[in-house]
């Protein structure tokens, strides 16, 4: 599937997701301000990060006269609406992803997408899913440099590496018995970060 990032074995955790929705001029002005606000005050992103299934998300407002025209022979676009491009990568199946968004992030979801034509609000979730399906565009090719790793897996691995590096610097040349004890302490401190690896993670 072109929307799934895969490794050499055809396995992958990350799925790409593209939703394009139309907005009026007033709507795009408001949404640009909201996105600027969320960007300026990064603490507003903490809830989304706590869900731990979003490696990357792009929110892009494209005004009706901003579709690139690189050659005078290219016909000019003449559109009635501005557009919000919501371009995300997530871990896990589509349905629970939308449900988690609707359940936990319904306030920012409604704040931003209220200005999109036809948006049904985040709750109940069934009309929201239908709206997304109507406006979703499938990727033609997707790539991840670490396709077998989930968001939690990447976070755990980075924490683990830091702990192992510190252990190697401080304990590697201790007497064997003492090394063994320190190694056990290391394992206790990182036991929830070793986990498994691959698409089942």
């Amino acid at each position, binding site marked *: 599937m*072109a*929307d799934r*990032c*895969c490794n*050499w074995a055809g396995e992958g955790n*990350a799925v*790409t997701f*593209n939703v*394009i929705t*139309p907005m009026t001029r007033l709507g795009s002005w408001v949404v640009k301000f909201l996105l*600027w606000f969320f*960007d300026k005050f990064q603490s507003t*992103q903490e809830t989304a990060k706590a869900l731990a299934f*979003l*490696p*990357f*998300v*792009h929110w*892009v407002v*494209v005004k009706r006269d901003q*579709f*690139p025209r*690189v*050659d005078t022979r*290219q016909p000019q*676009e*003449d*559109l*009635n*609406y501005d*557009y919000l*491009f919501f*371009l995300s*990568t997530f871990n896990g199946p589509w349905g629970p992803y939308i449900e988690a968004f609707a359940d936990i992030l319904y306030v920012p979801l409604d704040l931003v997408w209220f200005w999109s034509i*036809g948006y049904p609000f985040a709750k109940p979730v069934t009309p929201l899913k239908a709206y997304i399906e*109507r406006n979703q*565009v499938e*990727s*033609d*090719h*997707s*790539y*991840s*440099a*670490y*396709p*077998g*790793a989930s968001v939690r*897996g*990447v976070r755990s*691995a*980075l924490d683990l590496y830091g702990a*192992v590096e510190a252990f*190697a610097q401080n304990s*590697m040349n201790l007497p*064997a*018995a003492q090394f*063994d004890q320190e*190694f056990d302490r290391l394992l206790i401190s990182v036991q929830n970060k070793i986990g498994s*690896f691959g698409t089942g993670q």
Partner: protein
Amino acid sequence: MANRNGRKYGFTGLFPIKPGGHSSRLRNYLRSLDRHRYGSPLSDLDIVHMARWTIIERLPYQGLPAKRDILQSQYLLFLCDFDGESVDALVWDFVRFSPHLLIRVWGHCVGFPGARSREALAIYFEQCQLNTDLLLADVPDATVNEILRALVCRRMLADLIDRKQRNGWTSSALQNQFQQMWAMLSAVGRVQPGSL
């Protein structure tokens, strides 16, 4: 800061596609890239975390009373999250490591200047760039290779623990095995993107 989060740059670009069948040929080519050994030829670029290509043939229509927007051109949407401060870093890596891919993909797009001149290519990418109003990046300060090395370390440690439990090592044996593991990990330079 728009387009950026920590050490990461989120590029979003819309490239108009040439008329006359280029869109379908480009789609066929992009879909064939899934068969690459490491998931994509983008794995040749060490700075790219994630990327996608999406062909936009039409804009969504919400039904009456909304108006229907008809595009005069089709567009190639290219999204790329990479380590860097500007598009120059991405263009430089494309020209250096994957000029063939540049030509096979963007050769179907209007105004593509070819892969020889970095400056012309950077101008072209900037011309087609959309401002990413908000970029969310989960680990904004870790580079591709730092993440890959960390994932390799996790695998090696898990393997070490597994062997320790199966073999019942003495303290000296464990220490020796850990030292070997750490030496191997320290000797690892570049981890192949797309391999994990």
